[in-house]
């Protein structure tokens, strides 16, 4: 049993790492959301720069989904089938992204370059916003119930049921929206920082630095608001017998109980602020994406850990508290988690070759002559 719990914890950590990487990689979407603020030449520079990276974001999202399916299938079953519209909108926004980079400049693309750029804009805005909303439901709860024995019902009853709006209500919740907007502004901030680092063009860098004032400022305000909401929010706690109940200031208590996460959160915040502020104030500083990226990773990692550990339900049910999902009641079997853990040994190797290729490809910065 102890081994099973260790594996469950390990897989939540893996999911947290993937989630943190995904949020960092949303700089691609953040960059896309700013395409229409740029003139034609700059837009080419930006899409060329992002065109080398979009697939990594896309793949991280797909792997995040696949790994969730493998390690916590009850979440996959409950959230995806329940918050149908929310997930479908997210998926649609990524589908239209996937073809746009390849098609926009191709002769015979039928709909014209502007059409594909508009698709990139839609993905740039909707992707981070809606992913943020989806993650927010994990903190603030969602309208579902889980009854596994429904599987035995011949009349087609489902294990998990959801409210009639199937995810639209999650988008309409102000707390979820606040979270989503924060993720969007973070993505835009990281997007600007990425452009500063990846594109060797002074006019574009000057514009991106100006945009950082707005994007970064809005992000900081929204981040502080989200942290305040999170730390004062109720969460669901589960006792040793598996009984769940709502507890005041649950996430705040989790941070205090797991103080290393608080250190990570603060360190990450400092790094993001450092990368942001130095990039805004120092016109010769173009590597802010790295401290801000590492900071983003640490902040998201700590938030996911706060969400899943310390007997916390990572997916609270607003309709039936006992249906809330925890890493104990929603995970795969010990055997599967172990098999997957063996496979996960290869993750550092995967990260290694990604880093190697990234470095090799980015050694030369994107310039106007290349874009032409």
């Amino acid at each position: 049993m102890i081994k099973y719990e260790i594996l469950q914890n390990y897989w939540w950590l893996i999911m947290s790492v993937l989630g943190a990487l995904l949020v960092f990689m949303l700089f691609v979407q953040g960059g896309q959301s700013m395409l229409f603020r740029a003139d034609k030449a700059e837009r080419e520079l930006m899409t060329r720069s992002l065109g080398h990276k979009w697939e990594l974001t896309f793949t991280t999202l797909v792997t995040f989904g696949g790994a969730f399916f493998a390690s916590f299938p009850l979440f996959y079953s409950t959230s995806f089938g329940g918050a149908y519209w929310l997930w479908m909108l997210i998926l649609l926004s990524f589908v239209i992204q996937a073809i746009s980079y390849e098609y926009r400049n191709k002769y015979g693309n039928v709909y014209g370059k502007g059409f594909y750029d508009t698709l990139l804009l839609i993905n740039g805005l909707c992707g981070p916003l809606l992913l943020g909303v989806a993650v927010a439901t994990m903190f603030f709860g969602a309208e579902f119930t889980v009854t596994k024995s429904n599987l035995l019902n011949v009349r087609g009853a489902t294990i998990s049921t959801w409210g009639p709006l199937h995810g639209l209500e999650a988008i309409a919740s102000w707390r979820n929206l606040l979270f989503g907007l924060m993720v969007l502004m973070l993505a835009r901030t990281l997007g600007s920082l990425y452009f500063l680092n990846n594109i060797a063009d002074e006019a574009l860098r000057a514009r991106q630095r100006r945009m950082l004032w707005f994007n970064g400022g809005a992000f900081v305000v929204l981040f502080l608001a989200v942290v305040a909401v999170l730390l004062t929010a109720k969460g669901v706690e589960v006792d040793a017998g598996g009984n769940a109940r709502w507890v005041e200031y649950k996430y705040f208590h989790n941070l205090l109980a797991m103080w290393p996460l608080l250190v990570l959160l603060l360190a990450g915040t400092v790094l993001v602020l450092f990368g942001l502020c130095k990039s805004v104030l120092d016109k010769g500083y173009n590597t802010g994406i790295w401290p801000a990226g590492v900071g983003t990773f640490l902040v998201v990692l700590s938030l996911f850990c706060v969400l899943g550990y310390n007997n916390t339900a990572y997916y609270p049910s607003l309709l039936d508290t006992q249906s809330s999902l925890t890493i104990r009641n929603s995970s795969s079997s010990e055997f599967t988690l172990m098999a997957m853990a063996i496979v996960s040994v290869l993750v550092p190797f995967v990260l290694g070759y990604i880093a190697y290729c990234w470095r090799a490809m980015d050694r030369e910065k994107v310039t106007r002559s290349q874009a032409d």
Partner: protein
Amino acid sequence: MEELTNVVDWSRAQFALTAIYHWLFVPLTLGLGVIIAIMETIYYRTRDESWLATTKFWMTLFGVNFAIGVATGIILEFEFGTNWSNYSWFVGDIFGAPLAIEGILAFFMESTFIAVMFFGWKKVSPRFHLAATWLTAIGASLSALWILVANAWMQMPVGCEFNPATMRNEMTSFWAVALSPMAVSKVLHTVLSAWTLGGVFVVGVCAWMQLRGRNGDHCRRSLKVGAWVGVVGVLLTSITGDTSAVTVAKYQPMKLAAMEGLYKGDFQQSIVAAGILNPDKTPVNDEPAFLFDISIPYGLSILATHDPDAFVPGIQDIINGVSYDSEGNKINTVSYAERMEIGRRVRSQIAAYDVALRAGDKLALDTLHETINRDFAFFGYGYLDNPEEAVPNVPLTFYTFHVMVTIGGFLVVFLLAALLFVYKPKWLEGKRWAKWWYRLCVLAIPLTYLCSVCGWVVAEVGRQPWTIQDLMPNKVAISDLSASYVQITFWIFAVLFTALLIADVSIICRQICRKSQTDLDQVTD
């Protein structure tokens, strides 16, 4: 109940739509990936710039096709959750693992190295670039491998055990899942059929250029690689097709019976080479199965068992639980009526287990666990209303199977001829019928796509009504959705994917047309 049927039907339609669109693009990615990797290898070894130009030409088409394959693929993965949430829990413990491995091992490999492949010509060394091209091709094939392992498991659920405490199936052997006979034959058959498509695509595009008298040297170079990959692909696809038939006969006899429109089986069973099914035929009447048919004696017995004298059961035999061994002795297999009875019994035992679990009745739990595991193989039949419900759509399965086999047979001859003409070009050059050959080559491209899609229709329609063979019918696998929601998303996907397909085909055709007018012996960028 009507609403339930609608949700199931629309969810199936949506999944079929996305799967078919996805499969229009994936096989070309798999096949062309290998072809361009071989071409670049030749360039790397010879440093002949004309091979580099040829590699880049096919790489452009690869990129266009790759993007849309990625776009349609993401929907498929998440649809397991959005539209089949009961399924996601019931078998997520097993099914999720290949998907996650696919993401970790294959998708990252593809997405990382494809960027190097397209944008890294001047940024990395030729050796590293070649490695990136091969790793992109290998990543695509690995991705196919894991998703096909997952699909094979749905057709032949092995390496797992039902846990009544969690109401789901749990993996007991990873290798049994990854290396089941169904998985091995499915992976090989599918990936090799993609090589066939890649080869036919290259042959067809080159034929189109030759019809217009453009870039003869480029075409000859391309055909040397494309025709070989196509021939190797089609021959191995034929061999693995045979293995697949034996596997299906053993583990999904109902599918095989539907593929052949066989209602009443026999020893030395003939195979229908061509035929028209009788639309009035049902599993419960005595109407003849065919209005017209041309059969080959012993054919099906050989195909299914490699024994010309063997008995092959038909749909009615399987429903009634009748079969015969190689000695001709009657074997009473479990009839579908009995399976339904067993399935219902297991279901009530699982319900009793749930009650005992809450009550903490350990003795009852042990007894029930044992009986549940003993009979669980027929669990899914307990959801059926009648035995005929377990019969797939025979006409669709029969006709698509025969279209696949017919085109497949044509492709064997066609690709061998194409390869022959690569080495004996004089047999073709200057001949009056050459232009008809080139037109046939172009026509072979859509025919191969049709063959490929038919193969999937046979595989998926032929196993209906099961989401998981014998364990979970479609109607139990669904999410808690209203039919109208799924209808809306179905039409959104239909419009979106069709629009993307139009753009994809348009770009590929224009690229071929435009680039063929340039000198493809020279590197232009």
